[in-house]
């Protein structure tokens, strides 16, 4: 017989090979998930639109190089910002801007104090964050986080009363199956409480 009986291939070293590959992947890859506070920068435009904004529609947050905070000229702690921002945004003391043929109307979903000296409408409420070049980044992120938290909580409240579901729930659902009706709901919530954050030039 010319052909020899095929002897079985020795699989004993298979484990070693697999281990080698495994260790290679363990070393060269990372597992960290990158998460953070998402922000959208305003587009750069040459022409400066002349918009007159009432003082009462702006919440002034100033932070200095010693990480001290002023909100509307009062000394506060970072943890107060969320409450102050929510009160300010949700105030609804006046009318919204008339646009697309829709007349200006009062905020029918706001639960605020309706204080005439505070913001008119959530779509008009601007948060201005003036920082110093020497402020630490941690402080800056904390303030951004609190502002984001204020908006999220307001949207959440509206979502619960309107759709009987939390805002986070809606977002998660939209990520899994992006249906049109969900997008409509989320857009409605976002339009009801739009994030208008202005960051003027830092203090030198």
């Amino acid at each position, binding site marked *: 017989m010319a052909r020899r009986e095929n002897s079985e291939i020795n699989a004993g070293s298979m484990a070693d090979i*697999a281990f080698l590959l495994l260790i290679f992947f363990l070393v060269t890859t990372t597992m960290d998930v990158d*998460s953070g506070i998402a*922000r959208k920068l305003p587009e750069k435009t040459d022409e400066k639109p002349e918009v007159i904004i009432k003082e009462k529609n702006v919440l002034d947050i100033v932070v200095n190089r010693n990480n001290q905070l002023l909100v509307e000229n009062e000394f506060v702690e970072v943890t107060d910002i969320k409450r102050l921002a929510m009160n300010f945004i949700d105030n609804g003391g006046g009318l919204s801007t008339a646009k697309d043929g829709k007349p200006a109307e009062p905020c029918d979903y706001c639960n605020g104090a309706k204080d005439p000296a505070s913001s008119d409408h959530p779509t008009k409420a601007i948060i201005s964050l003036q920082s110093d070049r020497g402020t630490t980044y941690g402080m800056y992120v*904390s303030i951004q986080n609190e502002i984001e938290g204020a908006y999220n909580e307001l949207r959440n409240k509206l979502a619960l009363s309107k759709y009987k579901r939390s805002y986070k729930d809606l977002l998660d659902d939209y990520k899994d199956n992006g249906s049109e009706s969900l997008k409509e709901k989320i857009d409605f919530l976002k339009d009801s409480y739009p994030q208008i954050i202005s960051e003027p030039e830092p203090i030198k």
Partner: protein
Amino acid sequence: MSKFKKKKKGLPAISTASLPDIVFMLLFFFMVSTTMRETDLLLKKPVLPTASEVKKLEQKSLVSTIYVGKSKDARISGDKIQVNDKIIDVKDVPSFIFAERALRSEDEVKYMTTSIKADKEANVGTILDIKEQLRDINALKISFSTTKGSSIETNYKN
């Protein structure tokens, strides 16, 4: 004597035939759940601030990361900016973004996000400079990279 010998080889050896299968399973798990490490940090590893309202960054392939932190050399003060494998100046940030854009197809460009991984002790001035540069070239989606947590006090208290 022969009786004694027989008793000694009672236990058979454990079969290692399934060992490769187990290891391969582990291997596939790691291949799927991890991503390739791209950069070696030339800076001191930034201590990210903590935040509670975080969003996960989707589509890692569309994220370009900018690191901001102190130099490893303690004698060099000030914030340093690192992209890919080199330390750059603020004014070079646009060229980095352009290089990143060139690697992606045209319709992906508008979904590209810039993730800023900065040390919590870094100066806001540096971050705002980077933001200004990004605005100039219309890279508007940014993310301040943070770790998820509820105790934001650690961000500004030493």
